[in-house]
């Protein structure tokens, strides 16, 4: 019997830690859960101008700068009947949609849904969702769209990217990018063309 006890003890020690207090970290308290919130980018409700900031990013001007309220009369800064002058940076490559398909004609500060219901710019994701259902579902479930912060909402909040942070609303297909530099590895993989 003492032999058996010794053997059990030996096996127990071999499996785990000598100091059991180190096996796990402190338990996470079920404190009030933090939230997962959507980041609202400043590019919403603004149009790019040809001017650039020091990082080379276009400087935007808010829609409300010119379109101060509902109705055509609310245009503060006139465009001399030439909308292209102010909206010239916009390249519209979004499934052949027209401006008014998303933008509310009676109040240019707003958007509208397919049923005509007006929508604040900050709620643009609802507008995206009415056509892009599978993506919207995946987004809601956390399987689409980038995020930062905490996976564990008990310990901290999560900030999720807005649709327009990755997909420019007027030309949603992301452009090609130059990849980050590769590792200088000792192992050289054969190029697929020559292998």
């Amino acid at each position, binding site marked *: 019997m003492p032999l058996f006890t010794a053997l059990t003890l030996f096996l127990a020690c071999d499996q785990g830690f000598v100091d059991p207090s180190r096996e796990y970290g402190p338990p996470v308290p079920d404190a009030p859960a933090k939230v997962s919130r959507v980041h609202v980018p400043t590019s919403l409700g603004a149009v790019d101008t040809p001017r650039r900031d020091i990082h080379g990013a276009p400087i935007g001007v808010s829609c409300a700068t010119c379109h101060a309220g509902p109705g055509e009369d609310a245009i503060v800064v006139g465009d001399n009947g030439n909308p292209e002058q102010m909206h010239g940076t916009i390249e519209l490559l979004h499934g052949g949609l027209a401006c008014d398909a998303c933008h509310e004609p009676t109040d240019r500060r707003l958007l509208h849904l397919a049923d005509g219901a007006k929508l604040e710019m900050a709620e643009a994701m609802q507008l995206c969702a009415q056509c892009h259902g599978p993506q919207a579902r995946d987004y809601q479930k956390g399987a689409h769209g980038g995020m930062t912060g905490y996976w564990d909402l008990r310990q901290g909040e999560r900030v999720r990217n807005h649709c327009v942070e990755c997909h420019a609303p007027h030309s949603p297909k992301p452009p090609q990018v130059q990849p980050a530099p590769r590792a200088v*590895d000792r192992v050289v993989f*054969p190029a697929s063309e020559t292998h």
Partner: protein
Amino acid sequence: MEDASRRTTLKALGATLGAAAFARAMAPLAAWPEDLSIDELLQRHYKELSRDDMVRVLRRLEQETLDQYGAVVTIDDVRPIPEVQFGYALNLSVCVGCRKCAEACHVENNHDRATNQSYIRVLEIKNGSVDLAMGTVDYDHAVPKKGRSYMPVQCHQCDNAPCVSVCPIEATWKEPDGIVVVDYNWCIGCRYCEAACPYHARRFNWHKPEIPAEEINPDQAYLSNRVRPQGVMEKCTFCLHRTRKGRLPACLEACPTGARVFGNMLDPNSEIRWVLENKRTFVLKEDLGTRPRFFYFFDK
């Protein structure tokens, strides 16, 4: 007299042989590496360190980083969260191969700057196949290239990990939350684990990593991103210094397409569980029976 003489001779002979054997046995001490302290030589295996031992080791390692790299860092022994099993999934439908994940890994995990090393390799493969042998990792053109798809590969934190079973000295093992870790101070650098890994996920420190002091990530853990010594193996730890404190891994935060999903597989409401239950997922080289915790999936 003759007996005594014989005995004396034998004694002298024995003493000479004994002294020679002792000198031979002690010879490695003559080749004592300059950067090896007595404390490091006598340090026990990670699992055998008491809490007090661990604190002493951490302070010593912090001092060494300060002495050798000029960087003030905090090294913690970050332990698993109870009732958490980590899982990771990657959406191959949206990955564009931009290597932002590898870049973030490089910075977060204090990799050697000259080799631009990271724990993630992004394979460029022809559409319509997952033929790894025909893939390349050294592409340098704009991505995504037409007719190509991209597959980042990192440690799969296998539940039946070949790298763990081949280690002759148990310097690598699987933690209770599923992460396979290395005790860099116990590893002898035999590289068996590198050879055993079917995902080519392990890296060897051929050189002492060189990182400018101001670029060293000071938020470190013993089992993850502390600066590794020369001659030891290293690997992805799902950023345990972050994830065991509830944060997302660095590669996930860096991904510009949102291709990565991370979380606790025991939580039925977690994102990773939704992906595993609803998406078309697969694991790489399933036939090998390694049971990875890293899953790939498609949108359609």
